[in-house]
């Protein structure tokens, strides 16, 4: 009998092989719809960012389809999970290719984005990453970014703190196991040498120990820091704020775009975030009409407050729309032709989005837009003039 179960197992694996083969090879030649694919983590610890991008892009695509599509062509959308793993991200890319994708929005995270970009360049697939912020993401000519690059953010934050004399002694708490966080920290530390303030303590944490921040906070206090720079995401930041308050520290906190969303943490005591400053292109509580409509529609559709990732993805879809309209390329063109056309068009367009006014792109794929400095006041983000 043992033999039979073995035969069964072999048969099962062979069958699985075959089913995965049957996916029609050689991507279907585009018809009259745009097939936009998305990649990001929708399960695992980073799911919050992947799901936000999935929903943000979905919302924009629904809006565009309702308004008649791009130059009459509807958009189909398919978002694939990569579990925050480069290898899975490449698998997702290949699965989307089988589906017939002709434009890619993704990957959400930097590491995955670099891995996917190395594949997409072979197909000359136009790739627009909403939030992959590492410089390595855009080394290929077919990849463009919606968000700022990490060095941009680090230098921006340092020069903002320096030129506005926010503080003279600065402490940093960053995630040394995270690409985004360590990337910003590196540039921040470099730029700090040219600025009138001094970094008095720089302490790290890792993905495996991100619950207790008492040491990092105490070191900052012992070093006499007035301001703590947090180039991290808001989940950990909410813990840091809570622990700083309960230990009775009175720091000013300063963060980057990862901090946006902290007020959206369900049940979070927003008074803890009072006075937190952040450089971010987007704030869910901004007063302009565009943002408010977006937030309202997003909440109605997905039952969550959108964060900056959702806004980046929403913008990404409209940027693609603008680029397609500029280039006049049709969905029936091959992936590579679409890629060529859109790569050219990207450097020619200017887009007003949720995450920036008059965004434009240089040939290297980086975006030009001005970050807004925000401060949390009375439980709301408010623009610092």
């Amino acid at each position, binding site marked *: 009998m043992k033999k039979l179960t073995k035969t069964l197992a072999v048969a099962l694996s062979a069958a699985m092989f075959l089913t995965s083969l049957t996916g029609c090879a050689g991507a279907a030649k585009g018809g009259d719809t745009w097939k936009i694919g998305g990649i990001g983590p*929708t*399960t*695992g*610890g980073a*799911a*919050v960012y*992947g*799901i936000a991008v999935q929903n943000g892009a979905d919302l924009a695509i629904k809006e565009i389809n309702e308004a008649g599509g791009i130059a009459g062509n509807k958009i189909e959308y398919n978002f694939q999970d990569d579990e925050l793993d480069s290898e899975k991200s490449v698998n997702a890319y290949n699965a989307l290719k089988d589906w017939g994708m002709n434009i890619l929005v993704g990957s959400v995270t930097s590491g995955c984005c670099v891995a996917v970009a190395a594949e997409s360049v072979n197909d000359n697939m136009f790739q627009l990453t909403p939030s992959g912020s590492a410089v390595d993401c855009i080394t290929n000519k077919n990849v463009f970014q919606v968000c700022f690059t990490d060095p941009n953010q680090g230098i921006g934050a340092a020069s903002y703190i320096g030129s506005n004399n926010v503080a003279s002694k600065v402490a940093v708490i960053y995630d*040394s196991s995270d690409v985004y966080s360590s990337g910003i920290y590196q540039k921040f530390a470099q730029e700090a040498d040219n600025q009138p303030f001094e970094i008095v303590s720089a*302490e*790290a*944490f*890792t993905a*495996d*120990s*991100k*619950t*207790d921040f*008492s*040491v*990092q906070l*105490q*070191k900052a206090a*012992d070093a006499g820091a007035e301001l703590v720079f947090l180039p991290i995401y*808001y*989940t*950990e930041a*909410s*813990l840091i704020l*809570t622990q700083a308050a*309960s*230990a*009775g520290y009175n720091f000013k906190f300063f963060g980057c775009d990862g901090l946006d969303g902290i007020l*959206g*943490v*369900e*049940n*979070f*005591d927003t008074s803890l975030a009072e006075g937190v400053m952040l450089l971010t292109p987007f704030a869910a509580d901004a007063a302009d009409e565009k943002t408010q409509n977006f937030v309202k529609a997003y909440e109605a559709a997905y*039952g*969550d407050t959108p964060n900056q990732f959702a806004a980046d993805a929403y913008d990404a879809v409209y940027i693609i729309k603008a680029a397609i309209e500029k280039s006049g390329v049709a969905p029936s063109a091959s992936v590579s032709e679409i890629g060529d056309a859109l790569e050219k068009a990207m450097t020619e367009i200017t887009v007003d989005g949720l995450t920036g006014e008059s965004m434009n792109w240089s040939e290297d794929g980086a975006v030009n837009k001005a970050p807004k400095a925000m401060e949390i006041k009375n439980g709301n983000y408010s623009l610092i003039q």
Partner: protein
Amino acid sequence: MSFISYLINGISLGSVYAIIALGYTMVYGIAKMLNFAHGDIIMVGCYTVFTIVSTLSLPTWLGIIVSIVLCTILGITIEAVAYRPLRQATSSLAVLITAIGVSYLLQNVALLIFGANTKSFTSVVNIKALKLGADGGLTVTGETLVTIAACLIIMVVLTTFVNKTKAGQAMLAVSEDKGAAQLMGINVNATISLTFAIGSALAAVAGMLLCSAYPALTPYTGSMPGIKAFVAAVFGGIGSIPGAFIGGIILGIIEILSKAYISSQLSDAIVFLVLIIVLVVKPTGILGRKIQEKV
């Protein structure tokens, strides 16, 4: 001054590891299996309290009770459905793998129900922080006090239960030799179910205290503290109830002190390195019993 303050922080963190480790060590001691899903039962307990207290605005005590009851039922169910059929399997690894499957399952169910967004947990502890030192510069939070008190109470109750009651003696018997216990008229299935019930109820309590001290709740909240607590349990000698407590506290202190004095980037590596050294010197942990092997 700062050393004492680090030490207090270490004890705070360690007390959370300790209370999770108590549940771990309990299940391991009796059922002899690494229940990788323990950390995720903790997460379920937290979401239950969160839903009742923060979403439905019902009183905290109700949340605590419902959470404990729910986790107990969950623990018994998981044992009956996923672990019991494999108890007689030829390798003990089979049940370890199923436990991992259960862990993935709980995480993904929570992800579908509650979404990936972080929730901020409202502390179930309502005790003011203790200020020590001349200028009140040393703070012991109410959560820490309650966690340590809870650890001590649980330790005393568990030890008494295991040593003094019939059910407890049955547990000991089952952990020594299942076959012999059965011959002596002990219902092995019921005893193991009871163990999982107690272990899961402890997980619920541990979860509440974990999230009260570190109030960020996601579907993955339980997994890393679960692993750390497992390390703590091994540290103290897995299967030993006081060992879990001591292991947890020591692990917390090492983690904080290595962050403070050596490197905050390498603290994980240092914690694990100390663990390895302890185990190489004393292969059954600090309080573990050495079992002489017979031919």
